[in-house]
Protein backbone atom coordinates (compact mmCIF):
# COMPACT_ATOMS: atom_id res chain seq x y z
CA UNK A 1 0.00 0.00 0.00
CA UNK A 2 1.10 3.54 -0.72
CA UNK A 3 0.54 6.59 1.41
CA UNK A 4 1.41 9.21 -1.23
CA UNK A 5 1.18 7.23 -4.45
CA UNK A 6 1.90 10.15 -6.78
CA UNK A 7 5.15 11.03 -5.01
CA UNK A 8 6.20 7.47 -4.24
CA UNK A 9 5.67 6.30 -7.82
CA UNK A 10 6.65 9.50 -9.64
CA UNK A 11 8.44 9.02 -12.97
CA UNK A 12 12.20 9.43 -12.66
CA UNK A 13 12.39 12.45 -15.00
CA UNK A 14 9.65 14.28 -13.20
CA UNK A 15 11.33 13.54 -9.88
CA UNK A 16 14.67 14.87 -11.11
CA UNK A 17 12.98 18.14 -12.03
CA UNK A 18 11.42 18.28 -8.55
CA UNK A 19 14.75 17.49 -6.91
CA UNK A 20 16.51 20.16 -8.96
CA UNK A 21 14.00 22.80 -8.04
CA UNK A 22 14.20 21.84 -4.35
CA UNK A 23 17.99 21.69 -4.29
CA UNK A 24 18.24 25.18 -5.76
CA UNK A 25 16.04 26.66 -3.06
CA UNK A 26 17.72 24.68 -0.25
CA UNK A 27 21.18 25.88 -1.30
CA UNK A 28 19.92 29.44 -1.48
CA UNK A 29 18.36 29.08 1.97
CA UNK A 30 21.48 27.76 3.73
CA UNK A 31 23.79 30.22 1.94
CA UNK A 32 21.68 33.10 3.12
CA UNK A 33 20.87 31.95 6.64
CA UNK A 34 23.76 29.81 7.95
CA UNK A 35 27.14 31.61 8.19
CA UNK A 36 28.96 28.27 8.39
CA UNK A 37 27.49 27.21 5.02
CA UNK A 38 28.24 30.53 3.39
CA UNK A 39 31.84 30.22 4.56
CA UNK A 40 32.12 26.61 3.34
CA UNK A 41 30.68 27.46 -0.09
CA UNK A 42 32.79 30.58 -0.48
CA UNK A 43 35.85 28.53 0.37
CA UNK A 44 34.87 25.95 -2.27
CA UNK A 45 34.18 28.78 -4.75
CA UNK A 46 30.52 27.84 -5.27
CA UNK A 47 27.68 30.35 -5.36
CA UNK A 48 24.01 29.43 -5.13
CA UNK A 49 23.63 30.55 -8.77
CA UNK A 50 26.05 27.77 -9.82
CA UNK A 51 23.48 25.19 -8.76
CA UNK A 52 21.10 24.84 -11.69
CA UNK A 53 20.02 21.22 -11.39
CA UNK A 54 20.40 18.20 -9.15
CA UNK A 55 23.48 17.07 -11.08
CA UNK A 56 25.30 20.19 -9.86
CA UNK A 57 25.16 18.73 -6.34
CA UNK A 58 28.72 17.39 -6.76
CA UNK A 59 30.00 20.97 -6.75
CA UNK A 60 28.86 21.45 -3.17
CA UNK A 61 31.04 20.86 -0.11
CA UNK A 62 30.26 18.04 2.32
CA UNK A 63 28.82 18.48 5.80
CA UNK A 64 29.98 16.37 8.75
CA UNK A 65 28.98 15.69 12.32
CA UNK A 66 31.90 17.92 13.31
CA UNK A 67 30.14 20.86 11.62
CA UNK A 68 27.09 20.24 13.80
CA UNK A 69 29.31 20.03 16.84
CA UNK A 70 31.10 23.25 15.97
CA UNK A 71 27.75 24.96 15.70
CA UNK A 72 26.45 23.49 18.97
CA UNK A 73 23.69 23.91 19.86
CA UNK A 74 21.73 25.84 17.20
CA UNK A 75 24.44 27.26 14.93
CA UNK A 76 23.50 25.18 11.88
CA UNK A 77 19.79 25.98 12.07
CA UNK A 78 18.43 27.87 9.06
CA UNK A 79 15.13 28.80 10.63
CA UNK A 80 14.70 31.39 13.36
CA UNK A 81 14.02 29.93 16.79
CA UNK A 82 10.50 31.37 16.65
CA UNK A 83 9.77 28.99 13.78
CA UNK A 84 11.38 25.95 15.42
CA UNK A 85 8.69 23.86 17.09
CA UNK A 86 10.74 20.81 18.19
CA UNK A 87 14.33 19.98 19.11
CA UNK A 88 15.86 16.48 19.21
CA UNK A 89 19.41 15.39 19.96
CA UNK A 90 21.62 12.35 19.63
CA UNK A 91 24.99 11.47 21.09
CA UNK A 92 28.02 13.15 19.58
CA UNK A 93 31.65 12.12 19.54
CA UNK A 94 32.82 13.80 22.72
CA UNK A 95 29.76 13.75 24.85
CA UNK A 96 28.47 16.87 23.16
CA UNK A 97 25.06 16.20 21.66
CA UNK A 98 24.20 16.60 17.99
CA UNK A 99 21.19 18.89 18.06
CA UNK A 100 18.53 19.21 15.36
CA UNK A 101 15.52 21.50 15.09
CA UNK A 102 12.23 21.10 13.22
CA UNK A 103 9.78 23.65 11.89
CA UNK A 104 6.08 22.84 11.75
CA UNK A 105 6.51 21.86 8.11
CA UNK A 106 9.48 19.62 8.95
CA UNK A 107 7.34 17.76 11.48
CA UNK A 108 4.62 17.35 8.85
CA UNK A 109 7.05 15.96 6.27
CA UNK A 110 8.62 13.69 8.88
CA UNK A 111 5.20 12.28 9.71
CA UNK A 112 4.48 11.79 5.99
CA UNK A 113 7.75 9.87 5.51
CA UNK A 114 6.99 7.63 8.48
CA UNK A 115 3.44 7.16 7.18
CA UNK A 116 4.89 5.99 3.84
CA UNK A 117 7.11 3.48 5.65
CA UNK A 118 4.21 2.27 7.80
CA UNK A 119 1.95 1.92 4.74
CA UNK A 120 4.72 0.01 2.96
CA UNK A 121 4.82 -2.39 5.90
CA UNK A 122 1.08 -3.00 5.66
CA UNK A 123 -0.28 -0.36 8.04
CA UNK A 124 -3.89 0.76 7.49
CA UNK A 125 -6.42 2.85 9.41
CA UNK A 126 -7.55 -0.34 11.14
CA UNK A 127 -4.06 -1.13 12.47
CA UNK A 128 -2.91 -0.78 16.04
CA UNK A 129 0.66 0.48 16.25
CA UNK A 130 2.78 -0.40 19.30
CA UNK A 131 5.66 2.10 19.43
CA UNK A 132 8.40 0.59 21.62
CA UNK A 133 11.10 3.00 20.52
CA UNK A 134 12.16 5.38 23.25
CA UNK A 135 10.28 8.69 23.46
CA UNK A 136 12.35 11.73 24.25
CA UNK A 137 15.42 13.36 22.77
CA UNK A 138 15.83 10.21 20.66
CA UNK A 139 13.87 10.58 17.42
CA UNK A 140 12.61 6.98 17.25
CA UNK A 141 9.48 7.16 19.40
CA UNK A 142 7.98 10.50 18.39
CA UNK A 143 8.88 10.02 14.72
CA UNK A 144 6.84 6.87 14.25
CA UNK A 145 4.17 8.15 16.60
CA UNK A 146 3.34 11.11 14.37
CA UNK A 147 3.60 8.97 11.24
CA UNK A 148 1.19 6.46 12.70
CA UNK A 149 -1.34 9.10 13.65
CA UNK A 150 -1.12 10.74 10.23
CA UNK A 151 -1.82 7.41 8.52
CA UNK A 152 -4.79 6.98 10.86
CA UNK A 153 -3.46 4.06 12.86
CA UNK A 154 -4.30 3.69 16.55
CA UNK A 155 -0.97 4.54 18.13
CA UNK A 156 0.04 3.05 21.48
CA UNK A 157 3.01 5.09 22.78
CA UNK A 158 4.54 2.40 25.00
CA UNK A 159 8.13 3.67 24.72
CA UNK A 160 10.99 1.42 25.83
CA UNK A 161 11.33 -0.75 28.94
CA UNK A 162 8.96 -2.75 31.17
CA UNK A 163 8.81 -5.75 28.87
CA UNK A 164 6.22 -7.61 30.95
CA UNK A 165 3.78 -4.74 30.43
CA UNK A 166 4.64 -4.59 26.73
CA UNK A 167 3.72 -8.26 26.35
CA UNK A 168 0.50 -7.71 28.29
CA UNK A 169 -0.50 -4.83 25.98
CA UNK A 170 0.40 -6.73 22.81
CA UNK A 171 -1.83 -9.57 23.98
CA UNK A 172 -4.76 -7.58 25.31
CA UNK A 173 -4.89 -4.96 22.54
CA UNK A 174 -4.40 -7.55 19.77
CA UNK A 175 -1.77 -5.21 18.35
CA UNK A 176 -0.88 -5.93 14.71
CA UNK A 177 2.14 -3.64 14.11
CA UNK A 178 5.13 -3.11 16.34
CA UNK A 179 8.16 -0.88 15.92
CA UNK A 180 11.37 -0.99 17.96
CA UNK A 181 15.07 -1.75 17.50
CA UNK A 182 15.79 -5.20 16.05
CA UNK A 183 17.69 -6.17 19.19
CA UNK A 184 14.69 -5.30 21.33
CA UNK A 185 12.52 -7.42 19.02
CA UNK A 186 14.79 -10.37 19.75
CA UNK A 187 14.75 -9.61 23.46
CA UNK A 188 10.95 -9.49 23.34
CA UNK A 189 10.90 -12.88 21.61
CA UNK A 190 13.12 -14.28 24.38
CA UNK A 191 10.83 -12.88 27.05
CA UNK A 192 7.76 -14.31 25.30
CA UNK A 193 9.44 -17.68 25.29
CA UNK A 194 10.30 -17.40 28.99
CA UNK A 195 6.74 -16.39 29.81
CA UNK A 196 5.49 -19.39 27.83
CA UNK A 197 3.56 -17.21 25.37
CA UNK A 198 3.21 -18.70 21.88
CA UNK A 199 3.67 -15.86 19.35
CA UNK A 200 0.59 -17.25 17.60
CA UNK A 201 -1.44 -16.07 20.61
CA UNK A 202 -0.48 -12.53 19.58
CA UNK A 203 -1.97 -10.78 16.56
CA UNK A 204 1.23 -9.23 15.21
CA UNK A 205 1.38 -9.01 11.42
CA UNK A 206 4.32 -6.74 10.83
CA UNK A 207 7.18 -5.00 12.57
CA UNK A 208 9.33 -2.03 11.57
CA UNK A 209 12.82 -2.38 12.96
CA UNK A 210 15.65 0.09 12.70
CA UNK A 211 17.99 2.54 14.45
CA UNK A 212 20.77 -0.04 14.41
CA UNK A 213 22.31 -2.31 11.78
CA UNK A 214 20.89 -5.81 11.56
CA UNK A 215 21.16 -8.82 9.30
CA UNK A 216 19.01 -11.07 7.11
CA UNK A 217 19.60 -13.86 9.65
CA UNK A 218 18.12 -11.67 12.37
CA UNK A 219 15.18 -10.92 10.10
CA UNK A 220 14.45 -14.62 9.70
CA UNK A 221 14.85 -15.21 13.42
CA UNK A 222 12.54 -12.33 14.37
CA UNK A 223 9.92 -13.30 11.76
CA UNK A 224 9.79 -16.85 13.02
CA UNK A 225 9.81 -16.05 16.71
CA UNK A 226 7.36 -13.15 16.68
CA UNK A 227 5.25 -14.61 13.87
CA UNK A 228 5.25 -11.45 11.76
CA UNK A 229 6.87 -9.90 8.68
CA UNK A 230 9.91 -7.84 9.65
CA UNK A 231 10.63 -4.63 7.73
CA UNK A 232 13.76 -2.52 7.83
CA UNK A 233 13.41 1.22 8.40
CA UNK A 234 16.34 3.61 8.05
CA UNK A 235 16.99 7.05 9.39
CA UNK A 236 19.28 9.31 11.36
CA UNK A 237 18.38 12.31 13.45
CA UNK A 238 20.63 14.72 11.55
CA UNK A 239 18.62 14.15 8.38
CA UNK A 240 15.19 13.49 9.89
CA UNK A 241 14.98 10.60 12.35
CA UNK A 242 13.31 7.32 11.38
CA UNK A 243 11.63 7.36 7.99
CA UNK A 244 14.39 8.64 5.71
CA UNK A 245 13.87 5.29 3.97
CA UNK A 246 11.69 2.26 4.55
CA UNK A 247 11.03 -1.16 3.11
CA UNK A 248 7.97 -2.11 1.06
CA UNK A 249 6.17 -5.46 1.05
CA UNK A 250 8.94 -6.90 -1.15
CA UNK A 251 11.38 -6.58 1.78
CA UNK A 252 14.33 -6.00 -0.51
CA UNK A 253 15.97 -2.81 0.73
CA UNK A 254 14.72 0.48 2.11
CA UNK A 255 13.13 2.87 -0.41
CA UNK A 256 14.67 6.29 0.06
CA UNK A 257 12.05 9.04 0.06
CA UNK A 258 14.22 10.93 -2.39
CA UNK A 259 11.75 13.70 -3.10
CA UNK A 260 12.89 14.91 0.35
CA UNK A 261 16.35 13.38 0.83
CA UNK A 262 18.74 13.11 -2.08
CA UNK A 263 21.17 10.19 -1.65
CA UNK A 264 24.68 9.74 -3.00
CA UNK A 265 27.25 7.02 -2.46
CA UNK A 266 30.82 8.29 -2.33
CA UNK A 267 34.17 6.63 -1.80
CA UNK A 268 34.85 6.94 1.93
CA UNK A 269 38.41 8.19 1.42
CA UNK A 270 38.44 10.08 -1.90
CA UNK A 271 34.80 11.22 -1.53
CA UNK A 272 34.33 10.68 -5.29
CA UNK A 273 30.82 9.61 -6.31
CA UNK A 274 30.48 5.86 -6.92
CA UNK A 275 28.41 4.02 -9.50
CA UNK A 276 25.08 2.36 -8.80
CA UNK A 277 25.52 -0.80 -6.74
CA UNK A 278 29.04 0.02 -5.53
CA UNK A 279 29.49 0.15 -1.76
CA UNK A 280 30.67 3.38 -0.17
CA UNK A 281 29.60 6.05 2.28
CA UNK A 282 26.00 7.15 2.17
CA UNK A 283 25.57 10.91 1.84
CA UNK A 284 22.28 12.80 2.10
CA UNK A 285 21.14 16.25 1.07
CA UNK A 286 17.84 17.39 2.52
CA UNK A 287 15.63 18.93 -0.17
CA UNK A 288 12.71 20.28 1.83
CA UNK A 289 13.91 20.76 5.38
CA UNK A 290 13.63 24.23 6.92
CA UNK A 291 14.86 23.84 10.51
CA UNK A 292 18.29 22.42 9.77
CA UNK A 293 18.75 21.66 6.08
CA UNK A 294 21.98 19.74 5.46
CA UNK A 295 24.00 19.67 2.25
CA UNK A 296 25.82 16.44 1.38
CA UNK A 297 25.81 15.21 4.94
CA UNK A 298 28.20 12.30 5.47
CA UNK A 299 26.24 9.64 7.38
CA UNK A 300 29.36 7.45 7.86
CA UNK A 301 27.16 4.46 7.04
CA UNK A 302 28.68 2.14 4.46
CA UNK A 303 26.18 0.69 2.02
CA UNK A 304 25.22 0.58 -1.67
CA UNK A 305 22.24 2.00 -3.51
CA UNK A 306 20.32 0.29 -6.28
CA UNK A 307 18.22 2.13 -8.84
CA UNK A 308 16.72 -1.07 -10.22
CA UNK A 309 12.95 -0.75 -10.41
CA UNK A 310 11.14 -2.43 -7.53
CA UNK A 311 8.15 -4.64 -8.41
CA UNK A 312 6.11 -2.70 -5.82
CA UNK A 313 5.86 0.24 -8.24
CA UNK A 314 7.75 2.78 -6.15
CA UNK A 315 10.37 4.53 -8.25
CA UNK A 316 12.81 5.56 -5.54
CA UNK A 317 16.29 4.06 -5.16
CA UNK A 318 16.79 1.47 -2.43
CA UNK A 319 19.57 1.13 0.16
CA UNK A 320 21.13 -2.24 0.77
CA UNK A 321 21.80 -3.35 4.33
CA UNK A 322 24.24 -1.12 6.22
CA UNK A 323 27.56 -2.95 6.10
CA UNK A 324 29.48 -0.87 8.61
CA UNK A 325 30.74 2.57 9.50
CA UNK A 326 33.49 4.77 8.14
CA UNK A 327 34.13 6.22 11.59
CA UNK A 328 34.52 4.51 14.93
CA UNK A 329 30.92 4.93 16.06
CA UNK A 330 29.39 1.82 17.59
CA UNK A 331 25.70 1.14 17.75
CA UNK A 332 24.83 -0.80 20.88
CA UNK A 333 21.15 -1.65 21.41
CA UNK A 334 20.24 1.25 19.14
CA UNK A 335 22.38 3.75 21.03
CA UNK A 336 25.21 5.58 19.23
CA UNK A 337 28.48 5.29 21.10
CA UNK A 338 31.84 6.81 20.31
CA UNK A 339 34.95 5.39 21.99
CA UNK A 340 36.00 8.98 22.69
CA UNK A 341 33.03 9.35 25.08
CA UNK A 342 34.38 6.46 27.13
CA UNK A 343 37.87 7.88 26.92
CA UNK A 344 36.83 11.25 28.28
CA UNK A 345 35.25 9.54 31.31
CA UNK A 346 38.43 7.56 31.90
CA UNK A 347 40.59 10.68 31.66
CA UNK A 348 39.03 12.13 34.77
CA UNK A 349 37.12 9.38 36.57
CA UNK A 350 39.76 8.00 38.90
CA UNK A 351 43.50 8.56 39.25
CA UNK A 352 43.96 4.84 39.78
CA UNK A 353 43.05 4.00 36.18
CA UNK A 354 44.71 5.06 32.92
CA UNK A 355 42.83 6.19 29.80
CA UNK A 356 43.94 3.02 28.02
CA UNK A 357 40.98 0.85 27.27
CA UNK A 358 39.65 -1.86 25.02
CA UNK A 359 36.01 -2.08 24.05
CA UNK A 360 34.60 -5.49 23.25
CA UNK A 361 31.15 -5.75 21.79
CA UNK A 362 29.40 -9.00 21.25
CA UNK A 363 25.95 -10.31 20.59
CA UNK A 364 24.90 -12.90 23.13
CA UNK A 365 21.50 -14.47 22.46
CA UNK A 366 20.97 -11.74 19.87
CA UNK A 367 21.44 -9.01 22.47
CA UNK A 368 24.31 -6.55 22.26
CA UNK A 369 26.72 -6.50 25.14
CA UNK A 370 29.44 -3.98 25.86
CA UNK A 371 32.54 -4.87 27.79
CA UNK A 372 35.31 -2.40 28.61
CA UNK A 373 38.78 -3.39 29.76
CA UNK A 374 40.47 -0.51 31.56
CA UNK A 375 44.14 -0.37 32.42
CA UNK A 376 45.23 0.32 35.97
CA UNK A 377 47.64 3.15 36.55
CA UNK A 378 51.20 2.20 37.33
CA UNK A 379 51.01 3.81 40.75
CA UNK A 380 47.69 2.21 41.65
CA UNK A 381 47.89 0.64 45.05
CA UNK A 382 45.38 -1.83 46.33
CA UNK A 383 45.56 -4.90 48.41
CA UNK A 384 41.85 -5.30 49.06
CA UNK A 385 39.04 -6.69 46.90
CA UNK A 386 36.70 -3.94 48.05
CA UNK A 387 38.97 -1.29 46.50
CA UNK A 388 38.78 -3.04 43.13
CA UNK A 389 35.01 -3.39 43.42
CA UNK A 390 34.71 0.27 44.32
CA UNK A 391 36.69 1.44 41.27
CA UNK A 392 34.82 -0.94 38.95
CA UNK A 393 31.47 0.27 40.22
CA UNK A 394 32.44 3.93 39.97
CA UNK A 395 33.59 3.52 36.36
CA UNK A 396 30.48 1.52 35.43
CA UNK A 397 28.20 4.24 36.78
CA UNK A 398 30.11 7.11 35.18
CA UNK A 399 30.42 5.46 31.78
CA UNK A 400 26.76 4.43 31.85
CA UNK A 401 25.71 7.99 32.52
CA UNK A 402 27.89 9.23 29.63
CA UNK A 403 26.78 6.72 26.98
CA UNK A 404 23.35 5.55 28.20
CA UNK A 405 24.41 1.89 28.07
CA UNK A 406 25.55 -0.03 31.14
CA UNK A 407 28.92 -1.59 30.35
CA UNK A 408 30.73 -4.43 32.04
CA UNK A 409 34.00 -2.92 33.27
CA UNK A 410 37.07 -5.05 33.88
CA UNK A 411 40.34 -3.72 35.29
CA UNK A 412 43.52 -5.05 33.70
CA UNK A 413 47.23 -4.60 34.44
CA UNK A 414 49.21 -1.58 33.29
CA UNK A 415 50.48 -2.02 29.73
CA UNK A 416 48.42 -5.16 29.05
CA UNK A 417 46.24 -3.56 26.35
CA UNK A 418 47.86 -3.89 22.95
CA UNK A 419 49.14 -0.65 21.41
CA UNK A 420 49.45 -0.15 17.71
CA UNK A 421 51.80 2.68 16.82
CA UNK A 422 51.57 3.91 20.37
CA UNK A 423 47.79 4.07 20.36
CA UNK A 424 45.60 1.56 22.12
CA UNK A 425 43.62 -0.77 19.91
CA UNK A 426 40.24 0.43 20.98
CA UNK A 427 37.47 -1.76 19.68
CA UNK A 428 36.87 -5.43 19.02
CA UNK A 429 33.46 -6.00 17.50
CA UNK A 430 32.56 -9.65 17.75
CA UNK A 431 29.04 -9.19 16.41
CA UNK A 432 28.50 -10.69 13.01
CA UNK A 433 26.64 -8.05 11.07
Amino acid at each position, binding site marked *: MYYQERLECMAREEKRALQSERLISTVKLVYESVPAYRKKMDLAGVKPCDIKSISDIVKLPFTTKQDLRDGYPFGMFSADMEDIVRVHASSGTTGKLTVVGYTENDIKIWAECCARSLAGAGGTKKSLLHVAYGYGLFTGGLGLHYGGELLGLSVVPVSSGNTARQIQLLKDFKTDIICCTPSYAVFLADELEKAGVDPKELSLKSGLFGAEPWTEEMRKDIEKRLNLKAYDIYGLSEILGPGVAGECEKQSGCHIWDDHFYPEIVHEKTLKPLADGKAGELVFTTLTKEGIPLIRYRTRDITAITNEPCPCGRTSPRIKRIAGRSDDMLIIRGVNIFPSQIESVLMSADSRVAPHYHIITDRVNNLDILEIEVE*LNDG*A*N*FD*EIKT*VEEITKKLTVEIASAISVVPKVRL*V*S*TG*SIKRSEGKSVRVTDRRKS
Partner: protein
Amino acid sequence: MLVNQISVYLENRTGRVADFSRVLFEAGINIKTMSIADTAEYGILRAVTDNNDKAVSILKQNGFNASSTNLVGFEVQDKAGEMFKVLKILENASINISYLYSFTRETDKSAIILLKVSDNEKALTAMAENGVKVFGG
Protein backbone atom coordinates in the same frame (compact mmCIF):
# COMPACT_ATOMS: atom_id res chain seq x y z
CA MET B 1 56.48 -2.50 64.57
CA LEU B 2 54.74 -3.18 61.29
CA VAL B 3 55.19 -5.88 58.69
CA ASN B 4 55.57 -4.82 55.07
CA GLN B 5 53.72 -6.85 52.45
CA ILE B 6 53.52 -6.62 48.67
CA SER B 7 50.20 -6.92 46.84
CA VAL B 8 49.68 -7.62 43.17
CA TYR B 9 46.56 -7.31 41.00
CA LEU B 10 46.14 -10.42 38.87
CA GLU B 11 43.72 -10.87 36.01
CA ASN B 12 42.42 -14.42 35.80
CA ARG B 13 44.71 -15.72 33.14
CA THR B 14 46.49 -19.06 33.02
CA GLY B 15 50.08 -18.84 34.15
CA ARG B 16 49.80 -15.45 35.79
CA VAL B 17 50.72 -16.63 39.31
CA ALA B 18 53.55 -18.78 37.96
CA ASP B 19 54.82 -15.69 36.11
CA PHE B 20 54.80 -13.77 39.36
CA SER B 21 56.93 -16.35 41.14
CA ARG B 22 59.27 -16.71 38.16
CA VAL B 23 59.97 -12.98 38.12
CA LEU B 24 60.86 -13.03 41.83
CA PHE B 25 62.94 -16.18 41.48
CA GLU B 26 64.93 -14.68 38.60
CA ALA B 27 65.65 -11.65 40.77
CA GLY B 28 66.83 -13.88 43.61
CA ILE B 29 63.96 -12.89 45.89
CA ASN B 30 62.63 -15.37 48.42
CA ILE B 31 58.89 -15.54 49.12
CA LYS B 32 58.30 -16.10 52.82
CA THR B 33 54.55 -16.41 52.64
CA MET B 34 51.75 -15.57 50.23
CA SER B 35 48.01 -15.81 49.80
CA ILE B 36 45.54 -15.04 47.04
CA ALA B 37 42.12 -13.48 47.42
CA ASP B 38 40.14 -14.58 44.39
CA THR B 39 36.98 -13.46 42.62
CA ALA B 40 35.48 -14.81 39.40
CA GLU B 41 37.41 -12.34 37.27
CA TYR B 42 40.58 -11.37 39.08
CA GLY B 43 42.63 -12.01 42.18
CA ILE B 44 44.77 -10.06 44.58
CA LEU B 45 47.99 -11.74 45.58
CA ARG B 46 49.61 -10.77 48.85
CA ALA B 47 53.08 -11.85 49.90
CA VAL B 48 55.95 -11.15 52.21
CA THR B 49 59.43 -11.53 50.70
CA ASP B 50 62.96 -11.00 51.87
CA ASN B 51 63.20 -7.80 49.80
CA ASN B 52 59.82 -6.14 49.20
CA ASP B 53 61.16 -2.91 47.69
CA LYS B 54 63.13 -4.80 45.07
CA ALA B 55 60.17 -7.15 44.50
CA VAL B 56 57.77 -4.26 43.81
CA SER B 57 60.13 -2.57 41.37
CA ILE B 58 61.02 -5.78 39.51
CA LEU B 59 57.34 -6.77 39.29
CA LYS B 60 56.42 -3.36 37.90
CA GLN B 61 59.14 -3.71 35.26
CA ASN B 62 57.52 -6.99 34.27
CA GLY B 63 54.04 -5.56 33.77
CA PHE B 64 52.49 -6.36 37.15
CA ASN B 65 50.54 -3.84 39.18
CA ALA B 66 52.39 -4.18 42.46
CA SER B 67 52.54 -2.05 45.57
CA SER B 68 53.30 -2.44 49.24
CA THR B 69 51.22 -2.09 52.39
CA ASN B 70 51.97 -2.26 56.10
CA LEU B 71 50.31 -4.91 58.23
CA VAL B 72 50.46 -5.88 61.85
CA GLY B 73 51.93 -9.29 62.71
CA PHE B 74 51.77 -11.32 65.88
CA GLU B 75 53.73 -14.30 67.00
CA VAL B 76 51.89 -17.03 68.89
CA GLN B 77 52.41 -20.69 69.65
CA ASP B 78 51.62 -23.28 67.00
CA LYS B 79 48.74 -24.88 68.88
CA ALA B 80 44.92 -24.91 69.09
CA GLY B 81 43.24 -21.77 70.41
CA GLU B 82 45.96 -19.28 69.57
CA MET B 83 44.14 -17.83 66.53
CA PHE B 84 41.00 -17.45 68.62
CA LYS B 85 42.98 -15.67 71.34
CA VAL B 86 44.31 -13.07 68.90
CA LEU B 87 40.96 -12.50 67.18
CA LYS B 88 39.14 -12.20 70.50
CA ILE B 89 41.55 -9.47 71.62
CA LEU B 90 40.88 -7.54 68.42
CA GLU B 91 37.14 -8.00 68.78
CA ASN B 92 37.20 -6.74 72.35
CA ALA B 93 39.09 -3.66 71.18
CA SER B 94 36.53 -3.14 68.36
CA ILE B 95 39.16 -3.45 65.65
CA ASN B 96 37.98 -4.56 62.21
CA ILE B 97 39.91 -7.02 60.09
CA SER B 98 40.05 -6.70 56.29
CA TYR B 99 42.02 -9.89 55.76
CA LEU B 100 44.61 -12.11 57.39
CA TYR B 101 46.94 -14.93 56.58
CA SER B 102 49.36 -16.92 58.64
CA PHE B 103 52.27 -19.29 58.52
CA THR B 104 54.11 -21.52 60.98
CA ARG B 105 57.78 -21.81 61.74
CA GLU B 106 59.00 -25.33 62.38
CA THR B 107 62.25 -24.14 64.02
CA ASP B 108 60.63 -22.69 67.12
CA LYS B 109 57.12 -24.18 66.78
CA SER B 110 55.67 -20.68 66.48
CA ALA B 111 52.90 -19.32 64.26
CA ILE B 112 52.84 -15.89 62.71
CA ILE B 113 49.52 -14.16 62.00
CA LEU B 114 49.57 -11.18 59.61
CA LEU B 115 46.55 -8.90 59.61
CA LYS B 116 45.22 -5.87 57.78
CA VAL B 117 43.23 -4.05 60.45
CA SER B 118 41.32 -0.80 60.76
CA ASP B 119 43.78 0.69 63.26
CA ASN B 120 47.37 -0.54 63.48
CA GLU B 121 48.36 1.41 66.62
CA LYS B 122 45.31 0.31 68.55
CA ALA B 123 45.91 -3.31 67.53
CA LEU B 124 49.55 -3.22 68.65
CA THR B 125 48.58 -1.67 72.00
CA ALA B 126 45.79 -4.21 72.60
CA MET B 127 48.15 -7.12 71.91
CA ALA B 128 50.88 -5.68 74.14
CA GLU B 129 48.36 -5.28 76.96
CA ASN B 130 47.42 -8.94 76.57
CA GLY B 131 51.00 -10.15 76.39
CA VAL B 132 50.95 -11.19 72.73
CA LYS B 133 54.34 -10.88 71.04
CA VAL B 134 54.56 -8.54 68.09
CA PHE B 135 56.16 -10.03 64.99
CA GLY B 136 58.92 -7.90 63.53
CA GLY B 137 58.81 -8.96 59.89
